[in-house]
């Protein structure tokens, strides 16, 4: 039997199971918290820093996806400070790689675009890095375009936790971070990839896409990963 705790999110009193994260409890109660790296069914890693919330009694911000609820916790999700950080984080996503919506397969069906609209991003106040990025087209079915990657690691977790193939991983740190196939070799030469396409479905942007589509035709269903994991739990 799960212990119950009382928490307050934006002044709303909520009774919740102590095993849950702040994000889970907020979503169950229709309180919106922005996320990019969270995909229900995959392990949360707190990579994107969009779900930061304030906890009363601490000057620090906490990532709602990796912080468990505790009794009498007082959470704020929508202060001026949090909105400011969300906007900064979103702008840095755009400034760090080359997100050219006009020529992207995901134009109009992109979680990063939607995020921009939600935080009211009209321009990027930081200098763009304009990095020269690899586009790996060696796989017969799919493309990995580093220009559009936001390093959320949803592909890596979908590959490891759902498919069990462990094709994807991360290399380097900071702005030089790159998602790699096997030991940084061509995706088409991978000995671990099963070509299942779960990484493509999990990817929130146009970084991973199927070769069968062109600009603006992306139609991803990351909820299928969630559904699959829920069904597996039921079978157990």
């Amino acid at each position: 039997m799960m212990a119950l705790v009382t928490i307050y999110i934006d002044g709303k009193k909520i009774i919740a199971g102590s095993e849950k994260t702040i994000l889970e409890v907020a979503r169950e109660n229709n309180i919106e918290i922005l996320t990019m790296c969270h995909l229900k069914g995959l392990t949360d890693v707190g990579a994107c820093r969009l779900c930061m919330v304030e906890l009363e009694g601490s000057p620090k911000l906490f990532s709602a996806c990796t912080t468990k609820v505790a009794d009498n916790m007082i959470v704020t999700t929508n202060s001026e400070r949090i909105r400011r950080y969300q906007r900064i984080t979103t702008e840095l996503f755009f400034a760090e790689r080359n997100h050219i919506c006009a020529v992207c397969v995901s134009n109009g069906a992109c979680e990063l675009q939607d995020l921009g609209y939600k935080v009211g991003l009209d321009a990027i106040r930081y200098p763009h890095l304009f990095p020269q990025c690899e586009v790996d087209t060696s796989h017969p079915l799919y493309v990995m375009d580093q220009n559009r990657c936001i390093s959320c690691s949803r592909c890596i977790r979908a590959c490891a936790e759902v498919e069990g193939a462990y094709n994807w991983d991360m290399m380097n740190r900071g702005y030089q971070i790159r998602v790699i196939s096997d030991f940084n070799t061509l995706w088409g030469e991978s000995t671990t990839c099963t070509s299942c396409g779960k990484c493509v479905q999990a990817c929130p942007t146009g970084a991973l896409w199927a070769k069968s589509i062109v600009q603006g035709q992306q139609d991803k269903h990351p909820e299928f990963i969630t559904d699959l994991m829920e069904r597996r739990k039921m079978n157990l």
Partner: protein
Amino acid sequence: MNKKKLATVWLGGCSGCHMSLLDIDERILEVAKLADIVKSPVVDGKDFPEVDIALVEGSVTSDEHLAELLHIRKNTKTLIAFGDCAAMTNVTGMRNYFDLKDVFETSYVNSISNDQEGEVPDNPYLLRLHDKVLPLQECVPVDFVIPGCPPNADTIFYVLFEFLNDRTPNLSEAKKLKYG
């Protein structure tokens, strides 16, 4: 009532934003009631005059663009970055991942259609491309941004109409934000 002065400018872009501006169709008459379009690629005119509102399409790619933009900033009350290229360099900025020298050689020398006989133009009257294409706000203060590739005609009209009536538009509240 004094009519406002409106200018539209085409820097490093494809003119698609101006095409979208023309797509406001008969609503241009509403704009014409409140403003005179005194400088634009679609009207005759010489130097850029003092204006109330300037819609500036495209990014800053060269010395010529930069000089033009600095002049526009000096003579404009409300400078609007018009479209994704002006706001975040967009397709125009795709050459930023490469050395300018390589970009020139790819375009003028090594392109298949040149049969290896082309050369990089070097006439002193030509503009000088900058190493990096920049969005407007990295060169001058920008008062308002309309992203989009191109922005919707409805969005353009909304922004113009608000400014012409001395109100400040809010794309986020109006649910008119769009990139790409």
